[in-house]
């Protein structure tokens, strides 16, 4: 029982987010880079069209040249000319568990990234800064996986049925009860795939005549689910409560577009942590808005469950709110639990409705029992039900690692986006030439990073995204930070104008 909020605001602790803008010359240089790339793209396309260069892309057969074209050459201009040049930084096959370190298969290209071949060597112990392994549950330790092996021997691997036919195992029931207990809600339902949880369940909850207010930077699964449902979709600016309130007011005042009838349902789709920005949703404000305007809230905690919050229970706990405030709690087990699948939790009525009406329940195969056991053991570890404090230690370690990593990157002078407490750290690179150079040089130093460019991010803001894990030791983080320091000086990436001097210890003596 609390006496009340001390200073009367919605936020119980400080909410610090940075989205620093780089100096103007950076944007100019980025455009110069893209312009040069585009000119050379046109040149290469011209040479390919006139037969001066070998064509490696898909083309129609000779007999079908008069038909309606199957492959529109210009549409994948960007893919063919810019993405292809740095394609070797993506889709790298790994051959070990994606823990804090992993092994890569070495891949070389003879014809500038059109084809790859494996040399047969593996690069060992590459530090993993790209996997969503926030609590470090992706491990191969035999003691940890004891129950999983028992269940694997008991059930095998295939379920061979959907939830509504013969695919509901006692493992699923046990897991659902555990998820509901973990989150503090009445009931939960688990699905085999996280993406499918969003895209198959939003159409079951909303339909024509409903309004969906979705954040600008929502994940593709939410966008797909919203489009499949057939409801009207309106977008509000990223994490911008004034924009959301304006949309809500317009919706209630004007109603549906032609008939001006009231909307059947208004639902707000947000994510807990946005994976490209590292920002955390402003949950207290959204909940107060939703209560005022009588809308529903769908919270996608894919990256935040297990990763934020005092005991790892997600953004609801991070802001000190009760799970009753959110109508539909959705999350995935891929990121923090080292498994696969997703869940939807909330009131019993909602979950019972989804059990009968969700597309995923009717047509999709249910979760594999060994994977369900992995989630059960990870969740029990987190809740402390296995008799140790290992779960809480992992959450604390993640928090410490996140704070250390972010603080050091800030001090060094890089531009980092996002909230100070989020384990997703996007480091801005801006120029297309630097994307390839950064990823390749980091691999030479035995560090694996994920770089993201144009279609997934705005065209001027390409970035490298680091995912801090509880399994990273201080030494690993220091190795990465030293490598980043060196590379930042060499590639001139330290654009931040707010940082202190990059090596303060030199000046204190």
């Amino acid at each position, binding site marked *: 029982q609390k006496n009340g909020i001390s200073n009367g605001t919605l936020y119980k602790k400080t909410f610090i987010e940075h989205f620093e803008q780089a100096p103007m010359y950076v944007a100019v240089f980025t455009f110069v880079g893209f312009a040069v790339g585009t000119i050379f793209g046109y040149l290469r396309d011209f040479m390919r069209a006139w037969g001066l260069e070998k064509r490696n892309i898909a083309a129609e057969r000779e007999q079908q040249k008069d038909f309606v074209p199957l492959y529109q050459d210009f549409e994948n201009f960007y893919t063919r000319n810019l993405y292809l040049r740095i394609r070797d930084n993506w889709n790298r096959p790994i051959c070990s568990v994606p823990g804090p370190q992993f092994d890569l298969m070495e891949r070389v290209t003879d014809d*500038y990234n059109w084809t790859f071949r494996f040399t047969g060597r593996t690069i060992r112990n590459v530090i993993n800064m790209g996997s969503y392994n926030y609590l470090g549950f992706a491990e191969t330790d035999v003691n940890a996986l004891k129950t999983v092996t028992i269940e694997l021997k008991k059930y095998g691997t295939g379920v061979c049925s959907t939830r509504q036919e013969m695919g509901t195992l006692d493992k699923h029931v046990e897991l659902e009860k555990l998820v509901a207990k973990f989150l503090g809600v009445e009931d939960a339902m688990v699905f085999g795939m996280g993406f499918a949880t969003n895209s198959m369940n939003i159409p079951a909850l909303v339909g024509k005549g409903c309004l969906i207010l979705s954040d600008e930077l929502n994940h593709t699964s939410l966008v797909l689910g919203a489009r499949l449902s057939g409801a009207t979709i309106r977008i509000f600016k990223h994490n911008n409560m004034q924009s959301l309130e304006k949309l809500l007011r317009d919706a209630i005042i004007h109603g549906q577009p032609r008939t001006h009838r009231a909307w059947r349902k208004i639902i707000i789709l947000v994510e807990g942590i946005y994976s490209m920005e590292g920002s955390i949703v402003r949950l207290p404000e959204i909940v107060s808005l939703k209560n005022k305007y009588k809308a529903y809230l769908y919270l996608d905690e894919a990256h935040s469950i297990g990763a934020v919050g005092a005991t790892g229970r997600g953004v609801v706990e991070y802001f000190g709110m009760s799970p009753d405030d959110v109508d539909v709690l959705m999350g995935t087990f891929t990121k923090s639990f080292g498994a696969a699948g997703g869940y939807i939790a909330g009131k019993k009525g909602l979950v019972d409705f989804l059990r009968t009406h969700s597309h995923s329940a009717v047509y999709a195969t249910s979760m594999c029992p060994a994977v369900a056991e992995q989630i059960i053991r990870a969740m029990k570890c987190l809740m402390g039900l296995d008799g140790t404090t290992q779960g809480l230690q992992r959450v604390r370690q993640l928090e410490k690692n996140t704070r250390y990593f972010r603080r050091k990157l800030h001090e060094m002078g890089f531009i980092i986006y996002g909230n100070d407490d989020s384990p997703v750290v996007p480091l801005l690179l801006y120029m297309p*030439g630097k994307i390839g150079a950064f990823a390749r040089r980091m691999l030479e130093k035995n560090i694996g990073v994920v770089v993201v460019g144009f279609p997934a991010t705005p065209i001027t803001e390409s970035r490298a995204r680091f995912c801090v894990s509880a399994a990273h030791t201080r030494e690993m983080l220091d190795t990465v930070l030293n490598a980043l320091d060196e590379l930042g000086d060499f590639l001139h990436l330290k654009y931040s104008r707010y940082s202190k001097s990059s090596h303060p210890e030199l000046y204190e003596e």
Partner: protein
Amino acid sequence: MDVRSSLSYLYWLFCQFELITCSYLMEPWEKLLFYSFNLALLGLLLYTTYVCVALQASSAFQLLCSLLANPQDSALAVVK
């Protein structure tokens, strides 16, 4: 010592140029094309600057000389 550090600084500047203009990503023949085009453009720019500046400088110098030699006549001519 100074030469080596300045050379490495120049090399670093060249790397920055390569990264900014995406010539780091180009195949060797594309790089050749791009650099020769850039050098040609730079050469033309320098030549134009040289001609232009030299012309302006010489005409300004002539004006100055005429001003100094005949102060009153040429001053009136200039003002008119």
